[in-house]
């Protein structure tokens, strides 16, 4: 029956592969093509201009600033999210009172797990509305209201949070971390639960403290999950468009004040939709694509470890 098997498998694969090529690969390739033209995005006419868009791109100070902001996100976002998620996951799964009765989480860990995961079920649009309420710049805002109530902030000069040139991007980062920790907490929890309890019990019998069990047992056995989380968060850091464009001030897709929270994606959209420089925007898209690709490959390579079997 071997001759029957091939068409069977092929029948299953051909549709998704064709769809994938038509809807993902082909548009990607087209974008590479468009990035070599002066296409306006509003007409079928375009001229081939070679690598002009790319040379312009790397002389464009706005783009280079945006790139820096993305790199900042790239460092802070995965680091903060993974550390927080790891800490919480450890506390919820094995951080409970050591000694008696083996390995357990802190009291009420099942409840905390739900609470921590909650932000993950909110859509980005809701997150944005929610945190615009939190960061609102008069005393109607949650933070300002509390701070003014406590007398820390002067009612006539409330804090400007997301519209502050220094802290704007950090405010957005806070939201991304807040919403992301829950997901990675659950991811790490699942991985931790698959670690056999006898390993912990053996360590505890040998007199290991929480810190030791974390660094000597949990972390090495969790390495693959962390690696995955890192790659995902790096990709998220290259995007961040939704929150930056809605929460920060500025003309057309936010990024303000005065480009202080500009990221590559907001700049791309403004060039594509608002300024009619679609070819140029496509070049940005290509650059973002390659940066993301290189980052993923590099972080997978660098963090490669010997797989631990148990």
């Amino acid at each position, binding site marked *: 029956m071997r001759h029957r098997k091939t068409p069977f498998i092929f029948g299953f694969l051909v549709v998704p592969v064709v769809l994938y090529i038509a809807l993902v690969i082909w548009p990607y390739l087209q974008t590479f093509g468009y990035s070599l033209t002066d296409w306006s995005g509003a007409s079928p006419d375009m001229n081939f201009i070679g690598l002009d868009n790319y040379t312009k791109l790397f002389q464009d100070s706005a783009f280079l600033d945006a790139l820096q902001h993305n790199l900042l996100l790239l460092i802070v976002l995965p680091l903060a999210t993974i550390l927080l998620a790891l800490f919480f996951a450890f506390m919820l799964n094995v951080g409970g009172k050591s000694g008696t009765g083996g390995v357990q989480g802190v009291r009420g860990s099942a409840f905390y797990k739900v609470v921590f995961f909650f932000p993950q079920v909110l859509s980005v*649009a809701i997150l944005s509305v929610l945190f615009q309420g939190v960061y609102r710049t008069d005393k109607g805002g949650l933070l300002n209201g509390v701070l003014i109530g406590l007398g820390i902030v002067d009612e006539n000069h409330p804090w*400007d949070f997301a519209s502050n040139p220094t802290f704007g991007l950090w405010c957005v980062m806070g939201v991304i971390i807040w919403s992301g920790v829950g997901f990675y907490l659950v991811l790490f929890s699942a991985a931790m639960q698959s670690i056999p309890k006898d390993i912990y019990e053996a360590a505890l019998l040998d007199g290991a403290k929480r810190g030791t069990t974390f660094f000597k047992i949990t972390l090495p056995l969790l390495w693959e999950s962390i690696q995955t989380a890192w790659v995902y968060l790096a990709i998220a850091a290259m*995007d961040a468009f939704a929150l930056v464009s809605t929460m920060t*001030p500025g003309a057309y897709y936010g990024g*303000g*004040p005065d480009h202080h929270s500009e990221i590559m994606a907001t700049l791309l959209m403004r060039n*594509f939709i608002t300024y009619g420089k*679609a070819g140029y925007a496509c070049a940005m*898209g290509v650059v973002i694509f390659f940066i993301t690709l290189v980052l993923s490959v590099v972080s997978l390579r660098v963090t490669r470890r010997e797989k631990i079997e148990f």
Partner: protein
Amino acid sequence: MGSATEYNRRDLFKRAAAITVLAAGGTSLLAACAGGSGSSDSKSGASPTLGSDNKNPFGVKASDALDVVIFKGGYGDDYAKVFEDAYKKAYAGANVSHLGTQEISGKLQPRFNAGSPPDVFDNSGAQAMKADVLVSADQLTDLTVLLDAPYLDDPTKKIRDVLLPGTVEQGTINGKMYSLNYVYTVFGLWYSAKLFKEKGWTPPKTWDEFITLCGTIKAAGIAPFAHQGKYPYYANYVIFSLIAKQGGLDLVKKINACDATAWDDPAVLAGVTAFNKIMEGDFLLPGTNGMTHTESQTAWCQGKAAFIPSGSWLENEMLASTPADFDMAFLPIPSLPNDKLPATALWAGAGEPFMVPSKAKNKAGGLEFLRMMLTKDGSSKFVATANSLTVLKDGVNADVPLKPGTKSSAAAVTAAGDVTFNFSFQDLQTAFDAEVENATNELVNKRISPAEWVSRGKAATSKKV
């Protein structure tokens, strides 16, 4: 711009729709690019010429279908159906297709890229296509032929004779008119006449009076001035009105043309310095610099601030939040000493741009549709439902009741007469505008001085399309 659609334009959910374009790390953005498969042989056809038949000057063929796309925003899209019915009555054989949508760009960009645009469309809302982009891509019909066509209610007049001043200019790019902006908007300050009467305040005529009054208002425990800080172009309504009145119409022209020398005119510095007195006096509503248009306008409706800048769509936009006895009133921007324009002069212009694509199949039909929108009956129906004026001179039948804000802005339009000015760069020079908005945002936050604002504005002229 310049319409109740403003409310939607900056609306989060519209943006959220745009966001989906990028959601998958750029994947779907790339899909958005994938529309450009049109052939290049469909270069724009000849513009229809004007025939002698007053009833059908563009030579519409009754058998040709008409394809209409309307932005379904603050005004809905039912008003367009009234005009479509009129069209069907005149051309019985025509099959009129109607699309009311908020995703103008999403629906039309692929069609433009494929070379099969609609015959007439209302290019408004959050996802409007950029007029400057369309023009430079040679996608729009020159509407001069419409301006020279006979007016339907009185064929002895031409359409250009019955439009309010500024309408033609507003739709003009590089010397040709490409869009008929249907809704007439005035820009200035708004206040509650009821509050002012209670407190015994008189609406100021000069900027000095305005600043003095701001002091009085502040002493009374109300913030004198609120603005829509997250979108700094509202504050620009005040700054650029001051500049225009001080410097005159030639200066307005030069600024709109992104002429760098315009910014050396002392009127520019005088205008922005006058505006800066609001910051010097600490007259801003606390927090207003970071608030959205909805947040700050609501605070203003609640009486937390006395003045707010906006266009005349404000009344319709804030209907739900305005107290019944608020008595909304419009104030032209007060004048500076030695102004070149009179105190009654107004920033007035037309919004809700209707366009006829150059590659439309039934261009004549599209033009005729626009002509039909400009009748007194059609205009009155629009005014009654949208609480906003149209660009048709005296375009309101006497029996249409007006709300206080609309009445007050209509009175300002009458008082201004022919002396109106209009800054079109906010729509037509978007890259320049974005930089000027950034500079204004820095100014209201006291991070730059008026002189720095001027030099940043001058530098931004290099972004001319």
